[in-house]
């Protein structure tokens, strides 16, 4: 299963990067969201899958799944949520102000 998940994570990265390389702001934001999904899956797979019970202590269980990747991912989910929201509002402001959402036209100019 780990190998399938690695491949899925690779697919998420591929589509994420491809979207990131587009011109439109909305696509770029979708790209970053896909990349963070890929990264979360990547970290989870690193810790091996389905090796024991959920990491909540019980009296009669001694084998738990690895709690460390989960803690890392939890932090990351929240951070990427913050990033995505910020990017969305930023994209909205930028396209409003400059009347375009095309990255090639949003280069600034020599005098700035």
């Amino acid at each position: 299963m780990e190998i399938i998940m690695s491949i899925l994570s690779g697919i998420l990265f591929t589509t994420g990067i491809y979207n990131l390389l587009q011109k439109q702001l909305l696509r770029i934001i979708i790209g970053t969201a896909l990349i963070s999904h890929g990264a979360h899956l990547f970290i989870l797979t690193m810790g091996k899958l389905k090796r024991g019970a959920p990491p909540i202590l019980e009296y009669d269980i001694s084998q738990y799944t690895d709690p460390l990747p989960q803690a890392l991912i939890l932090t990351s989910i929240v951070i990427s949520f913050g990033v995505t929201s910020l990017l969305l509002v930023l994209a909205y402001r930028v396209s409003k102000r400059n009347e375009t959402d095309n990255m090639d036209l949003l280069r600034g100019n020599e005098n700035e």
Partner: protein
Amino acid sequence: MLFTIIIPLLFAIFVPAFAKWKDKIHTGYFVLLVPLSIFIYYLQFIGEDFQPISASYSWIPSLMISLSFYLDGLSLLFVLLISGIGTLVTFYSIYYLHKSERLGSFYVYLLLFMAAMLGVVLSDNIFVLYTFWELTSISSFLLIGYWHHRAASRYGALKSMMITVFGGLSMLGGLILLNVITGTTSIQAMIQQKDIILESPYLPIIMTFIFLGAFTKSAQFPFHIWLPDAMEAPTPVSAYLHSATMVKAGIFLIARFLPIFVLNEWFFVVVSGIGILTLCWGSFMAVRQTDLKGILAFSTISQLGLIMSLLGIGTKTAIFAAAFHTLNHATFKGSLFMIAGIVDHETGTRDIRKLGGLMTLLPISATLAFFGAFSMAGMPLPFLNGFYSKEMFFDATLELHDNPLVGAQLLGQAIPYLAVIGSIFTFIYSMYLVFGTFTGKAKLDQLPKKPHEAPLGMLVSPILLVIAVIVIGLFPNLVNQSFLAHTAEAISGYQIEKNIVFWQGFIPPLFMSITVVVLGALLYVTRKKWSKVYTVIPGNLSFNRVYDKIIVGVETYSSKITNSYMNGSLRRYIALIMTMIVVTTFVTIFATGGFQIKTDDLAEVSYAEIFVAVTMALAAIGTVFARNKIAAILILGVVGYGLSLLFVIYRAPDLALTQLVVETITVALFLLCFYHLPNLRKTDDTIGIKLTNGIIATSFGTMMTLVAISAHSSKWFPTISDYYVETSYKLGGGDNIVNIILVDMRGLDTLFEITVLGIAALAIYGMVKLRGEKEGE
């Protein structure tokens, strides 16, 4: 010794505070205390029974870098010059710099330089030496560019920095090689092991590197070009840095390493060859200058060449003469610089073509200038110190060398003649300097200001220097046994005793001196007739042009190269960054054989997971092809919800919950914003760009898959997760291990995470608010 370096630095911290009161009392009066007290402290070491002392403070022991200092005769000569001339220059600057100038910055730079220069001459550790060496370049840069509103100041500052830092870097290379060969960072310990260094195959490289450092710093041909441009600095700075102290750091470096390198036959050829060439070229070019400080700059270049060639000769007489001339040069050149500053200050110009006949108007300055210039010219008069060291120089050039190199034989034959030629031109420009400024017809109408004698305070420093010229001239043995003998001994490594007498009988050096005076006087009188020579030599030849070409060329090409990839397109940057990551990772994987795959330790495959995975993959691919923005956002939501399903399957309940909540809010946010964002368009990229993007994206994804599989297949270290499982209840008092990790074990991380969210929230709030204000206008 350490405190004499630290005091100027500490004092520099308080200078800006003193500068606040500059309207009441000139900041220079406070600063004056620093060099004066250092000078008095080091005066106590002068004496016949002086012994070198050393002190060491641990700094970075793991790199063998300690703050170790070593005070021997050579260092003593330099620290007295630095603090002594420093005192006089500070006093002079009180009258030279008006209160309206940025006095705070000036004195901070000056004290920084003082500390750095003391550090250079006192350090025994090569890396500490190098640090202070570069610090002198930086403070010199700041001081030359002090009047930074002038383009010439900025140009001069940059030029001196470029050339001296280039030399400093190559010197560092030489020092590191020395460190590698000898295994020590102490200069004195290196001198003890000179046999190892001399037999090393790296010796030519080491010598080249260290000589480059010394020659650039001491403005030797062809690196001399920075010194004339450095004259844009305020005159006290020129007198101090660019005549008496900093430019002699190169001399100091050669003298410091002389016991090692003198045993190599190339030492004489290179050091004396460059030195004597610099002497001739500098004095020849000085005659052509029209700016008073320009004449003095080329004069300094040529005098430095003289000292350098003496060190290259390396005999007893030569080394003693080098030490003697270093002292003498500081006295007469320092006073001449200060007089040039006075003339500039009182008349408003330094152009010698406009000056003349100032003798009656500035009688004291004129008298001082005559003493200084005659001493520089080497006039055979028993009260001028310049004559003694000039005689010793001639004497040293006549000593024959038993050097097997053909070049050395030729140079040995030519050096006496070149010395005389250089000295003749020295004589000419000295005369030109004083007679051109102070005698002849006064052209008062051409002067911007009506000249009158400088205030007494400005005259004190040059008067003291000229008194030193005369006292050393009258009683040269005052500085002999108690002072210079120690210096010469420190340079050469053995005892040198020299008698300094005025009349040595009818010996060759005397005839050489007479030749210089007679021919010099003749050529000075007829100089208008032969000045056409300069259209042939140097003619169009100019090292400045070479420097400018190099600088312009480097700037053009680097901006061309940078602009070729920094075109302002963020897509381009991302593509380049991704490509670099992919290439380096793949190369590393293949080079180290890092890829491995193990199938023996895998979780079993279930249909539910496969189903979710395939859905997610399809949805992810779907985002690329979606043409409708609502569709794209919803498809993205499918990926997110699919991930939370996977979290459920993989027994991560907290993640599943969080992902579910976050995904819902994100989709809602997307939908809120989407109304304002333009709809998705069919991309107008060409097939080529699409293909490139596709290749980059696919290879990056493949890379991540391969890395994930390899990382999963190889376990090098035991996992640290067990620790959390075992101690979660004991230390955190909770059953949910993930929560314990987040709020107890890694509580600070979570705090920062909350901070990041807070910052993002503030930024979003700001941007939303900004819109309201814009629309309200």
